[in-house]
């Protein structure tokens, strides 16, 4: 299909995507606060314009044809671009730089990172998000950059080099090896290890699970997210947990360095491939690598 785009194309594309998302003409009409006949007519006009059938009406509602499925990505792009046209251009005001960091990022490192961003952006909004949430938000354009745990899937994203922060093991204060400053991971095999929930980053989770499994360490059934939860779980006395924050201490919790730092916290600064942060990317990485 070539030729000049039609004036009502954006509306028809909006109808089309509503039916895609709802899977049903009636519900799509409801969502658009309109009746069904003009919606159906709009879809039919779009089908004539494109020269192909977009939906098959079946017992379970409207199902996309392969021709229709092929249109979906371009349709979403068009609708997003149309919405962007209506967004007012911000005047005389630098936009807020939207940043997310993982809960495992040590507080002092996070502060250094934000300072680095502030040197180039007057306004910074920081969220603490697990890797899976950050990669989804980056993909949706809701974030400008995020510190994520490596390895993770980064479709449509780019990322800086891998940053390694050493990690110690937090063990219960009553642990027989609690006073020993440095140990091979294997010697801690008797105590189950609590990790962050697997859904936060299956690849990074499985990597650690595979590595500790080789050394005979079992995983604890309950997960912990971030240093605070890790400290409290270990203080509870039944599990051990990893931390990259050298200042993290608490009563009833001992720190043990792991020989050879076998389980460092691996991080990357990620951003949308179509909106690279330029020199700021390097500055963020450098800020996190500073001891």
């Amino acid at each position, binding site marked *: 299909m070539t030729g000049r785009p039609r004036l009502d194309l954006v509306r028809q594309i909006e109808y089309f995507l509503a039916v895609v998302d709802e899977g049903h003409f009636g519900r799509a009409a409801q969502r658009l606060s309109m009746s069904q006949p003009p919606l159906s007519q709009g879809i039919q006009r779009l089908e004539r314009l494109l020269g192909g059938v977009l939906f098959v009406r079946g017992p379970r509602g409207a199902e*996309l044809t392969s021709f229709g499925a092929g249109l979906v990505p371009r349709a979403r792009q068009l609708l997003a671009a149309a919405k962007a046209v209506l967004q007012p251009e911000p005047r005389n005001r630098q936009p807020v730089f939207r940043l997310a960091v993982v809960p495992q990022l040590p507080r002092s490192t996070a502060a250094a990172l934000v300072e680095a961003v502030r040197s180039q952006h007057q306004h910074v909004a920081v969220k603490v998000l697990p890797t899976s949430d950050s990669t989804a938000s980056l993909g949706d354009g809701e974030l400008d950059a995020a510190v994520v745990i490596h390895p993770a899937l*980064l479709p449509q994203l780019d990322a800086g080099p891998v940053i390694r922060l050493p990690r110690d093991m937090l063990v219960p204060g009553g642990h027989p090896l609690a006073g020993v400053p440095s140990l091979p991971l294997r010697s801690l095999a008797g105590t189950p290890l609590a990790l962050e929930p697997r859904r936060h980053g*299956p690849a990074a989770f499985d990597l650690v699970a595979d590595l500790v499994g080789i050394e005979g360490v079992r995983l604890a059934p309950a997960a912990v997210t971030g240093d605070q939860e890790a400290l409290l779980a270990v203080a509870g006395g039944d599990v051990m947990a990893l931390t990259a924050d050298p200042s993290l201490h608490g009563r009833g919790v001992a720190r043990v360095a792991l020989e050879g730092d076998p389980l460092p916290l691996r991080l990357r600064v990620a951003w949308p491939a179509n909106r690279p942060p330029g020199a700021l990317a390097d500055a963020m990485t450098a800020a996190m690598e500073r001891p």
Partner: protein
Amino acid sequence: MTTDRVSRRLRAAFDDAGAQGWLHVRELSPSGAEVALDADTPVALSSVYKLPLLVAFLRMVDAGEIDPTRRVTVPPAPRTAGSTGLSIMRDPVTMSWRDLAVQMITVSDNAAADVLLHKVGLERVTTTLRTLGLDATTVTRGSAEEIAGLMTETGAHSVADAFEALTDLDHVALPSGYDPLRASASTARDMTTLLAALWTGQAASAEQTAFAKVLLSQRNGPYRLRAGFPHDAIQLADKTGTLGSLRHDVGVVEFPDRTAYAMAVFTRSARPDRLLPGVDAVIGQAARLAVDALRANG
């Protein structure tokens, strides 16, 4: 199951395995019922390029341009590196053109593939692709060039070091072999189009079609599509491709009731590890999800 629901389940399966996934499954029947997930996005093929090369070779045999039984001698150097077949042999090897094809498909022999590619030519492969309606597929180079590129890009001095560099967790390598604009590339949909053409006898003569089906069912390699179809009674003929974090499998599955499905699943894992059996397995699991959805609707 609605198309959207299948897509969501496929995405969830790939996410859980820590891999990005591209999939196309089509029933080999007049209905041509299909399931697609990013099926029109080009992906670098790695060794899956050997399948279009096989089809181009078969068509030259059919046209009388190659005598498949004619013997050729492959000297030890230059010979493309690899982990199987002629690639790991030390001395001159003499075998027929069709046995080179046997090597290329059954053990993904890089050296045999490059000898065949030299004979067939990239241009002929492209003509074959376009004739069969594969417009999104480009075969731009063979294994030797891919490996040479990999060595340059990783700064490695040996082939082994180059492949080792791809598994480095702390230095993320992005060789051109991952790049659909530079490597040989295709879409999941194009690969099932090719398989469907081959299986229905439109790509080559009955004799050469039968030869190809036997080769593809005698393949040795990791369990990928097979992981989703775990029974002797289900026949599988397929070709895998592997390069660093790319793990692919394209093939045809035939059930005891004779219904058959062409399927192409491409993956790219988040982890750079050489061995990721969970990602191998999700290739089959995703294909099975798609096939089950088609069988439930059919």
